[in-house]
């Protein structure tokens, strides 16, 4: 890359992020199409326009046409739309409950998804049962779509386990704390899917901060080289704890893909319909043997990074206010109302359902028992290990010595 082209991209990016308008797919790829797209991007740059933020619903809830992606949601019914709204409301309610439980001392930590509901529900609902998901530690909405009991997500944050569910039960892998590691697991899994001759797809979630990690770059390399059926779903929520995306990259993240030889697209991550459409497109590519895709869901983390974080130290309230106007739930509600897809009764019923969910989660967490002391030694190895056996026996003897003393 020349200095000139770097500068050009940077200026396009800053101009574009202010504009934030909907546009066409700017997928970097190889071959003749790549040439056409490069030309298109150059033209766009000359006009100072944002190179593509796929949007189907405006923040006001107005449905806008998109020649490339409309077909991926053409069959969607009013019932489906209400379902997406319900998913987002319940996920937000669950998340709020977990945050409250952390404040009450019931959880050691919580990573809220507030603001990212559309990115997660849209992508999560695009998946088939046989697809496999590799999440970070914030994909509560995707877990919801996979049918993972939300209370299972809380075990790790309460400190009763380091996982909490069977990954193969819902094809939803365990949360991964080390940033970006799971993108390689997803790639390897997808390589396995291809070897098996299956037409399942794999999706790897990660954040804008993770895009700086070597593992993410390596997963791009491996997936491209082996043409693995994996969708890289980056939720760019603008902040990696206190570091803005500008500290991670000088080019829009979705453009990274072109350097690896597969398409990247930026979607309005607060638009559940657009996220659904774009993810379906990417999954279909994977199923059809066309290899990986990078989807950058452009969204915003409305809360703190985790309950240990204090965003007032590094960002202004007006930034959040600007994004609140683009709230994913509000946007779909406006659309449902304007299209007369939902009445007061629906919203009231949903409100009641979300209260029931909150209550269930609260009670489940409080009832969650501490694990047995001997869990320390369980499952360290599948085939056993002499040292673990020895230390377990020592621990048992030590514990028993207290019991004997109490007995006396």
């Amino acid at each position, binding site marked *: 890359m020349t200095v000139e082209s770097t500068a050009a991209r940077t200026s396009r990016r800053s101009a574009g992020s202010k504009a934030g308008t909907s546009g066409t797919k700017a997928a970097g790829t190889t071959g003749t199409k790549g040439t056409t797209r490069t030309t298109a991007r150059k033209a766009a740059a000359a006009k100072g326009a944002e190179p593509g933020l796929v949007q189907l619903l405006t923040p006001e809830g107005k449905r806008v046409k998109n020649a490339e992606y409309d077909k991926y949601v053409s069959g969607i019914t009013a019932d489906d739309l209400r379902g997406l709204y319900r998913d987002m409301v319940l996920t937000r309610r669950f998340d709020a409950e977990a945050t409250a439980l952390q404040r009450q001392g019931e959880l050691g930590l919580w990573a809220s998804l507030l603001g990212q509901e559309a990115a997660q529900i849209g992508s999560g609902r695009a998946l088939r049962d046989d697809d496999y998901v590799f999440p970070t530690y914030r994909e509560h909405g995707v877990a919801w779509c996979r049918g993972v009991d939300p209370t299972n997500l809380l075990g790790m944050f309460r400190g009763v*386990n380091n996982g909490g569910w069977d990954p193969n039960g819902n094809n939803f892998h365990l949360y*991964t704390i*080390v940033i970006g590691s799971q993108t390689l697991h997803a790639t*390897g899994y997808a*390589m396995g899917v291809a070897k098996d001759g299956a037409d399942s797809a794999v999706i790897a979630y990660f954040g804008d901060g993770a895009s700086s990690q070597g*593992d993410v770059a*390596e997963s791009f390399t491996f997936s491209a080289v082996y043409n693995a059926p994996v969708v890289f779903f980056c939720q760019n929520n603008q902040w990696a704890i206190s570091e803005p995306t500008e500290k991670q990259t000088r080019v829009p993240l979705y453009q990274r893909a072109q350097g690896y030889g597969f398409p990247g697209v930026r979607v309005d991550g607060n638009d559940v319909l657009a996220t659904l459409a774009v993810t379906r497109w990417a999954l279909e590519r994977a199923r059809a043997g066309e290899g990986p895709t990078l989807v950058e869901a452009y969204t915003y983390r409305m809360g703190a990074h985790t309950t240990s974080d204090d965003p007032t130290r590094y960002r202004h309230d007006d930034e959040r206010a600007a994004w609140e106007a683009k709230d994913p739930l509000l946007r779909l509600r406006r659309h449902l109302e304007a299209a007369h897809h939902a009445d007061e009764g629906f919203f009231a019923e949903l409100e009641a359902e979300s209260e029931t969910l909150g209550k269930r989660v609260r009670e489940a967490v409080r009832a969650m028992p501490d694990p047995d002391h001997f869990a320390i030694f369980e*499952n360290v*190895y599948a085939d056993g*290990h002499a040292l673990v056996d020895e230390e377990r026996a020592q621990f048992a003897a030590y514990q028993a010595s207290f019991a004997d003393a109490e007995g006396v």
Partner: protein
Amino acid sequence: MAEKMALAKAINESLRRALEADPKVLVMGEDVGKLGGVFRVTDGLQKDFGDSRVIDTPLAESGIVGTAIGLALRGYRPVVEIQFDGFVFPAYDQIVTQLAKMHARSLGKVKMPVVVRIPYGGGIGAVEHHSESPEALFAHVAGLKIVSPSNASDAYWMMQQAIQSDDPVIYFEPKRRYWDKAEVDTEAIPAPLHRAQVVREGTDLTLAAYGPMVKLCQEAAAAAAEEGKSLEVLDLRSVSPLDFDSVQASVEKTRRLVVVHEAPVFFGSGAEIAARITERCFYHLEAPVLRVGGYHAPYPPARLEESYLPDLDRVLDAVDRSLAY
């Protein structure tokens, strides 16, 4: 069928057998395909099993191990090669934070049958990062198993057992012994993977070692015998788990122990052995457990490695010091 073969060839034959027996077994790494590996350990495998079973990977160690984890999650049994010991560190994160912990984190629902092959150790006149012995760094991590054969027969059988294990196994190959030949009986019933073996009986002192240092200890025992000293040589074979029962049995007989490894002595596996054997055998020991190994310094340039690595004199010096108590 017994056949005399070099240690590298024994691993090759073992991989071949595993690839034949189980379509889920994969061999992955940099240059393992057409080239057959920089040490030719995987020679001919891609030709016979194809490039979807014997996979040349991009030059990215974290990627190799990370994708192997994903393949294991899909039901495959990858055997990955890290080209040289000092190159494992880009993959260390994946090995330690992911591979080692996946089984425990999933409460036993997920198995990680991944073998990480690492040619290790010095003595071949190589450049920087090509001669290290990082086994203790892995042995410290729960969830990993660490083994190192010292001869062709063990190399063959321990690879079979490592591949069959549902736990991740770090398989350290003593690269300076790759060309040493020994009888390999491919029909034999092998010893358990993690059991130490007495390779020379003795009564005055126990020399405990694994991988490349076993041969040195056998040579030391032969030299000591000429001076009328009877040394027992124990091939530990497995660093994690470590067969302390066998070490204890030998020390209860000889009452003296010298541990020999190439890795730095400080915080090395010899330290763990010394501590545990002191606990187990305090009243049997006639001398403190002594250690012979590398120094707390970066592995030196090749022209200095003879001074860094344990040799016959250093082992015999430790033997003399122990016997002098």
